[in-house]
Structures are given as C-alpha cells and as structure tokens.
C-alpha cells in the first residue's frame, strides 16, 4: 500500500476517533465522577444533530446552528440531571432503568418531531472542499474535525490538570464524600459536569452529522463504541477518553481495510487485551467501591 493512501486511512481513523472522543469524554467523566452510566448519552448526540438540522433549515447557517444546538443540548442535560437523575444517585439499578428508558423516549421524540424520512446535515460551505494530498483527495471538513478534537483535548487536559475545577473533578473521582466534606457544593459540580458532557456529545452530533449521518438508532451504535472507549481508556479522565477514542477509531478504520469481516471483533479484542493487562483501563484512576 502506498504511504499516501495509508496516511489517508489514518486521517480517516483520526476523524472518526475525534467524534468518538467528544462523546466518550463526557460519558467517562460523568461515569467516573457521578458514578452514573448514562445510557441516554447517545440521545445528546442525536439531539445535537437534529436540532442543528432544523436550525440550518431556518437558514441560520452551520456555525450559529452548531452553537445554538450545543447550548440547547446542554440545557437538556441540566434538566435531565436536576429533575430525574438526582433522584437515583447511588441506586445503580434504578439508574440503568431510568437512563435506558430515557434513551427510548428521546429516540421516539426525535421520530415524532422529525419523522423517519432520512435527512442529511450538509457540510458547512466554507469547508466543503477537498484537498489534494499527494494525488489523493481528502475532505477539508474532516481535517477540521481532527483539529477541533485535538484543541478540545488540550483544553480539557488543561482544565483537568491546571485549574481548580479540574482539581475538584479529580478529587471527586477519587473520593466524593471527602470532597463534599471539604465544603464543595457537589450538587453544582455534578450539574455543571453533566451539562458539559451533554454539550460535548451535542457537539459531536453536529460535527458528526455530515460524516456519520443522522437517523434514530445511531445513538445506540455510538454509545456502544463510547462505552468500549471508556473501558479501554479508564474511568473519569479526559486523557483516557482521548487515547481510547484514537485507538478505537484507528482500529475500526484500518480494520476495515485489512480485515473487513473482523472489524467489530478487533475493537473488542483490543478491549479484552487492555482489560487483561490493566483492569482499570489505560489511564484509570482505580476502581470504585
């Protein structure tokens, strides 16, 4: 295989990985900090892309639609955390039932509002060009997605390690009781983290719309990949989500090139290997009681 083609495949894998990263990051930190497996996390992806679609239809333009959609999805996250999840903190079974049920409700809501006809979110016109990279063409939009993903990773890393909020989150992942005993308003922290996680998934939805498409059902597909990433990368760390997402993105893409029929299996094989060597994931902070 020519190196330029291999390079192209790697870029494809990275773009896919970045989209997964944005979802998995939120999922992982919510999981790690709040001890909630949010099975409705895919709904934020769905909400992001569908709301953006409607706003683009209103001639709002891709970028404004993106921002508005992220804000709305974050708002949805706040409502969900305040009025529903708050009631089930510490009750794992109830959480699973609640979030699983919510994912169905959101999926049906989307069907009810937008119908089932296939829709498509167009690539923003400013990025709707393909670049000639050594004889092969590559869409500029995907490079943009990679760029956004990397910037986000740096930003989140900075937040986690260099700011007070990051310190609170790290402390919270390690020991929640102690954190609230120190006088931190854990409620506010939970709600804001949940909103940020929702917003990231929404962003992934908007950016992923032109690449992965929009249809009811993608929410659960993407949730499975994100859960794998959380397991591989480890709970409650942006870094784990980032490395895990890149790994899954690359394995998935290159797997399709070399072992088309084993793609899905390969992703899980990676997961098993990681679990065997490091049961807490690559960057996990240790198991919770």
């Amino acid at each position, binding site marked *: *295989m*020519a190196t330029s*083609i291999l390079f*192209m*495949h790697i870029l*494809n894998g990275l*773009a*896919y990985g970045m989209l997964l990263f944005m979802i998995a990051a939120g999922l992982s930190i919510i999981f790690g900090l709040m001890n909630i497996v949010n099975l409705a996390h895919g709904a934020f992806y769905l909400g992001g892309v569908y709301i953006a679609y409607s706003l683009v239809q209103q001639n709002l333009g891709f970028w404004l639609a993106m921002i508005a959609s992220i804000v709305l999805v974050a708002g949805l996250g706040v409502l969900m955390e305040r009025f529903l999840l708050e009631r089930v903190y510490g009750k794992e079974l109830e959480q699973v039932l609640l979030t699983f049920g919510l994912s169905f409700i959101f999926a049906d809501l989307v*069907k009810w509002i937008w*119908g*089932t*006809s*296939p*829709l*498509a979110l*167009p*690539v923003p016109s400013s990025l*709707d060009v*393909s670049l*000639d990279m050594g004889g*092969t*063409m*590559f*869409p500029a*939009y*995907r490079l943009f997605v990679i760029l956004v993903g990397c910037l986000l990773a740096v930003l989140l890393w900075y937040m986690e390690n260099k700011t007070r909020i990051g310190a609170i989150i790290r402390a919270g992942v390690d020991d929640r009781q102690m954190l609230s005993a120190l006088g931190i308003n854990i409620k506010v922290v939970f709600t804001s983290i949940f909103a940020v996680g929702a917003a990231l998934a929404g962003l992934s939805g908007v950016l992923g719309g*032109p*690449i*992965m*498409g*929009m*249809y*009811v*059902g*993608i929410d659960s*597909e993407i949730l499975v990949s994100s859960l794998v990433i959380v397991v591989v990368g480890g709970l409650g760390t942006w870094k784990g989500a980032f490395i895990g997402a890149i790994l899954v993105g690359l394995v998935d*893409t290159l797997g*399709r*090139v070399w072992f*088309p*029929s084993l*793609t*899905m299996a390969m992703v899980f094989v990676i997961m098993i290997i990681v679990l065997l060597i490091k049961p807490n994931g690559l960057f996990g902070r240790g198991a919770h009681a």
Partner: protein
Amino acid sequence: MVGKKRLGKSRIWISTLLTLVLLVLGACSNQTASSGEGEPIKIGAILSFSGNFAPLSESIKAGMELYFEQNGNKIGNRPVTVKYEDDEANPQVALRKYRQLVDSEKVDLLVGPISSSVVYALRDVIEKDKIVLIVANAAANDISWDKKSDYIYRVSISNWQDGTPGAAYIANNIGKKAYVLAPDYPAGHETIEAFKAAFVAAGGEIVKEAWPKLGNNDYATYLTDIQQTKPDLVFPFLAGTDAIRFVQQYEQFGLKGKIPLTGTQEFLDPLVTDPAGQAAEGIIGATMYTAALDNATNKAFVEAFTKKYGKTPNYFNVQGYDSAQVIAKAVEKAGSVKSEDLTKVLKDIAFSSPRGELAMDPMTHNLTLDMYLAKNVWKDGKIVQEIMGDAMKGLKIPETPPAKSK
C-alpha cells in the same frame, strides 16, 4: 399496611375500569359489524417502523393509505381496515406479530415485510396457515425460487431485477472496469451477483468488491480505496441513510465528476436524492419507477400523492399503492377473501401501476417489470430523475437460480 390496602383498592379500581373499557369496545365493534355494509375486510400489515427501515415502511404505508382513501376505504361494498404492526426487522418479533394478527385479529390477508429475513421466517408459517401475503418490499430472490409459496406474491422487485438491468448500458457506455460495493448481507450479495453476471456478459470486469457491514457509518475507508483502485466507474447497492452518506461523501472525497457513479434504483429515488442534494447529480442507473414516467395512471398518482402529502412520491410509495391495489383487484375478481380463491386470481393478476401496465409472472409469483434508464439532474435547486430510455422491457426474474459467475 396502609400502602397495601391502598394498592388493593387501586387494583380493584383498575380492573373495574378495564372491564368497562372492554365492554364499551365490545359494544362498539358489535355496532360496526351490524351496520349492514357487509363484513369488513381486515388486512394485517407487517412492516418495520423502528430502526433503519422506518422510512421505507412509512412510505409504503402512505402509498397504501392513498389508494384506500381514493376508493372510499372499501373493496366492493365491504369496508377495509388495515392493522399496521412493527416487526423491528426481527424475524422473531415478526412471528409474534404474525400470530397476533392471524389468531387474535383474524385478518383476512397480509401485506409486508421490508426485510428478507422476515419474509423467510414468515414463509413457513404462511404455508401452514394458508394465508395470503402480498410482499410489499422484501426482495430476496429465493422467495421466487426455492422458497416460492402458493400464498406469497411479490408486487415490489427482486434483488435480481434490481442488479441486472443497468449493467449492459453501463458496460457499453460508461466503462468496463467496475468497483462494486454493497452491504455484507444477503440482499447486498444477491444484487451485486446479478449485476456482476450481466456486467461481465456485456464485456465488463469487476476490479474490486467491497463489503461494508450493514448500517456502516462512514464510507471514508472505501472512498480512499476507490481513489487508489482507480476504476472506470463505481456501482454501489445501498439503501436509506447509507446511500445518502455514500453519495455525499463520494463528493467530499473529490470523486464526483472524476469517476462516474452509477447504482441501483435506490440511488435514483427521492428518498435518497432529496436529502443527498446536489451530490447526487449525474448518477446513472436503471429503475422501475420515477415520478417522471409518462403514463396516465402515474400522472393521476403523482397528482393525488403530491396533493395529499406535499412531496414527490418515491418508489416505496408506489409499492404500497400497488400492494393495496392488487389486494383490491384480487378480492373483487375472486369475489371472496378465501385464500384458495385469491391465489387463483393472484397468479397472473394484471393491473395499472404508476410503473406502467404490470402483470404477475405465474412461474415466479414476481412481477414482470419494465426497467428504465434514468439520470439524476439538478434542476431548480433540486435533484430530479430524468428518463434516458428503456433499460430492459418485460424483465422477469429467471425461473431458477442462474449459475454463479466467478
């Protein structure tokens, strides 16, 4: 204690309510039955309203509803009721819904399904229960071959008829080296197999086959591979959102206008081309239906459809419309809804479809179809299908499976 007591009370309250509802419902249904219009004809529709096939199912339902509405929701002097069920594209669920429709609802005949695996699952119980099924979409070839049943008649299209008709034109006019791509499931393999046989017979060569999984999210890998393979043309078979993404990403990877894109009729249908937009411009292929077909039935159909739903009909709408039409024609002609009477007339039933004058092939229980060459053109800010000529007239699925090409 108090809680328990209350629970007991509310349970009694609920069962009282339920009994009441049942009584009222019973009274109502008695009323309709005794209103003297003739026994209602009950049709059970098993489609996939959740999951990726939802848009196809909704389209078929819209087509059926249009036909029955145009005919006063009656066949002869008997009112028609259609009960729609969601099989989730899952054979096990479909069998459950089938039992419900046949045993409890006592439907007279069935319409459906979308998925080929469902049609195979239903086929055996249908043989046993001897109930007529009008296939509104499932394209599995074998339903016309080894799995043929006296009670199953297809008014949609078979995979063989979807893959075959465009091949000769493509080989003679577009290029000899084709890159084919289809989802890795039976319909994908059947359609590509048919295309391959016809394409090779016309002097073409398949340079590469790609089999992404069904519901593949991103086609980047394959589009990069196409750039590397440099075929004369690409022939994909994909449906719904998969097809839309493929077409859009084909443009994003700079392939549009560089390597001609052809395809099955899915790529020449508003269900895909409307959301895909300008990216779908220039795709050439063979199709059994476009809204532009010039015949009286189609003109009336397009007008009525556009009036009711405010959009251009797609070919799934036509499949639904024709399913309803075939049921009505068959019941009228047979003068009964008994399976043994219906099967006699269904074997060679002829009707005016928006697709043209069509007839059932008694050997395969599958329609003889006229296939048209069509091209997507960009006109007034919208993709429309333009008919370039006939691809194949009177195309029947062979009576037995053709020998596999290498």
